[in-house]
């Protein structure tokens, strides 16, 4: 890992909430004396401030407040906060129905988010090629050329949202949890309506896995693209299996050695630290045991599918085994394999949804567990679609939030995204000029991580992006900007 001292570039890069342009990605590439890229900085300039402005609010409002962090995965924030709130009211164990409803909700959410990411955002790059014509490299282009694939994506996402709607009352930003439980049972009619399409959903998810396996294994040039050998962090179930709702933390080195395992996430501060760098609003978390330089890690589908010992649903487990075979028994570090892993998880979600819909508990009426002794600290962790998500709240004696700390998934991938960008830039830089091809490849590298920023910015393949190349002395060498309508402008 390479990074500068905070002061050496302090005059060159200034990010201010006032000057932010929401929905724009900005990358700065810093050259060394030999004109190699020694550091890449993906600037996250969206300023949210949720941790600050929920201070002083009643704790029971929090799951509803924080879900507004995102329009793609609000359920993840809602559930992570709800898990923290359960602890605040002294609930250790939800009722079987409430737990299964939350899991169903989470599977629906992950399915729709993964479907959105692959089919709407990434499939155009992967099906048409990274440098292909921008006019067709979008979901509309996919609909024209691969209508079956595009429609399956749309329907998968719709199905995930139907689940959210049935449980939370709205497809986006609903209301599902209460302290220690859920606010509404799933009716038999709602369950039966969801059962109608489940076999199709299973088939579409299986096809999506096969398509992604084919895309990745069939393109050897993808293997090394933006690829890094990194540590992985994820939650696993008590038997080491893939687990998205509740489990212990597992971190492994790039070679597969255990750093932590079955770690109670409520002690996350004992194993994680967050570094602040002056040029980004996004922090840089690292595993304390390995230190700042070596301790950064990746989260999300690639981390989870690599880290787990098994997937507890049969079709996804078979897919996982093929994935691991591709890694020749070791971890698959290919950054573009995120897409493949993501679809394996989507299949796992579809299978889990099927199981839960056939579970008699899912239509139970016992929704709220008795509250126990109140606590002042609640820490909820969940595997959100983009990775491990930490919500940590401290309340005062009156029930108002005193402190909050959120480590969102994209934050954990921060260093890895920068490193991937550096790797791609070094490979595709052409002298001292930023080319359109480089711009496209950088975009693909960032998008593999499915960062929140890509959700916000990737409007039908037209992610506005600015790339700057700075010489060792900080002078601007080149600057290329792609606007929302795809037009490229150069300004030096």
């Amino acid at each position, binding site marked *: 890992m390479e990074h500068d001292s905070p002061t050496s570039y302090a005059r060159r890069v200034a990010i201010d909430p006032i000057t932010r342009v929401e929905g724009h990605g900005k990358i700065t590439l810093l050259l060394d004396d030999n004109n190699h890229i020694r550091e890449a900085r993906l600037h996250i300039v969206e300023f949210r401030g949720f941790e600050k402005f929920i201070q*002083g*609010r*009643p704790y*029971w*409002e929090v799951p*509803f*407040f924080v879900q*507004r962090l995102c329009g793609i995965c609000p359920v993840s924030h809602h559930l992570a906060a709800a898990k923290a709130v359960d602890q605040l*009211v002294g609930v250790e164990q939800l009722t079987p129905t409430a737990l299964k409803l939350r899991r169903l909700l989470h599977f629906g959410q992950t399915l729709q988010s993964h479907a959105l990411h692959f089919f709407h955002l990434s499939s155009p790059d992967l099906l048409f090629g990274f440098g292909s014509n921008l006019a067709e490299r979008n979901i509309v282009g996919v609909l024209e050329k691969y209508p079956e694939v595009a429609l399956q994506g749309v329907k998968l996402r719709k199905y995930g949202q139907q689940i959210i709607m049935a449980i*939370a*009352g*709205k497809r986006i*930003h*609903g*209301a599902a*949890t*209460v*302290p220690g439980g859920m*606010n*509404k049972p799933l009716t038999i009619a709602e369950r039966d309506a969801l059962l109608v399409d489940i076999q199709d959903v299973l088939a579409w998810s299986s096809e999506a896995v096969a398509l992604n396996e084919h895309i990745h294994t069939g393109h050897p040039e993808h293997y090394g693209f933006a690829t890094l050998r990194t540590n992985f962090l994820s939650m696993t179930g008590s038997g080491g299996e893939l687990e998205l709702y509740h489990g212990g933390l597992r971190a492994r080195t790039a070679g597969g050695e255990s750093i932590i395992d079955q770690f109670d996430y409520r002690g996350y501060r004992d194993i994680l630290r967050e570094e602040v760098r002056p040029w980004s609003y996004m922090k840089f978390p690292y595993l304390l045991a390995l230190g700042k330089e070596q301790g950064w890690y990746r989260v999300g589908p690639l981390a989870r599918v690599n880290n787990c010992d098994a997937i507890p649903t049969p079709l996804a487990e078979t897919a996982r085994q093929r994935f691991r075979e591709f890694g020749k028994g070791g971890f698959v570090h290919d950054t573009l394999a995120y897409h493949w892993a993501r679809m394996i998880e989507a299949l796992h979600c579809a299978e889990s949804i099927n199981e839960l819909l056939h579970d008699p508990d899912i239509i139970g009426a016992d929704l709220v567990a008795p509250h126990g002794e109140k606590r002042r600290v609640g820490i909820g962790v969940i595997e959100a679609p983009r990775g491990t998500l930490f919500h940590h709240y401290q309340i005062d004696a*009156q*029930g*108002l939030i005193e402190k909050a700390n959120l480590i969102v998934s994209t934050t954990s991938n921060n260093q890895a995204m920068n490193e991937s960008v550096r790797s791609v830039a070094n490979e595709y830089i052409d002298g001292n000029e930023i080319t359109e091809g480089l711009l496209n490849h950088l975009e693909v590298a960032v998008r593999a991580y499915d960062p929140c920023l890509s959700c916000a910015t990737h409007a039908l393949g037209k992610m506005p992006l600015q790339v700057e190349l700075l010489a060792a002395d900080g002078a601007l060498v080149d600057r290329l900007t792609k606007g929302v309508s795809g037009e490229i402008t150069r300004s030096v």
Partner: protein
Amino acid sequence: MRAEPKRDTAIPNTITIDGQEIPFSIGQTIMDAALAAGVYIPHLCHRPGLTPHGSCKLCTVSIEGRNVASHTADRRIQASSSVEIDSRSVSACTMPAMAGQQIRNNTPALNEVRKTITQMLFIEGNHLCPSCEKTGDCTLQAVAYHLGMLDGHFPQLSPRREVDASHGSVVLDRDRCILCELCVRASREVDGKNVFAISGRGIDAHLIVNSASGKLADSDLETGDMAAHICPVGAILIKEHGYEVPIGRRTFDLHRVSEIGLEPVILAKVRHTDE
């Protein structure tokens, strides 16, 4: 016990609202007569059974013909709001019904004025519907929908008033208070206490608590009091509850704010019980 209305054969005890003839009893206000006849006049600070207050001004109606506004300033306001010049704007909740009144209620001009008032109520406080536990059960929100309010129009004032969570089971979020004084009147007239009052003037007006420390914990407010449940917005809430009635079952998922006699439904939802 109200006196029986005197019957006058020459002038029947009726008023006319938007062309509809409505009977009234002596002592009734325009609002009383309208509600009894099933006619909705938008309101926030009014509640049958409590002394009319006339503070929210949402129930402003115009009475035509006589008693027109005599002040130039009143006329200017009326003109700028496209309200009939030859009429008098009054609060329906405080204006006694009088035989022969020709009243306009549901007109575009009046609803525009009401919408502006509602916008001002929104921007004066911190009404963040997406995270508020009262959303879907909030009368202010419902009235805003009813009037077709799409934005706050005016710059947000974003106040920072004190949240009082000192009470064991009731929390007071002053940033959501619309100064309707329903809690003040409920405490005094129904609960037989005197827990709340409004202090300060104009933009500095705010809800205060009648206790030595000024804190709810030191007042005699109890969870069973009507004052703890009557708030039409999310300013006074029962602690550690919220979002318990699922989306689709909340008051205004099932009802229109213009339905007459909704008060018991709203109160039940505040107590977190479904219909």
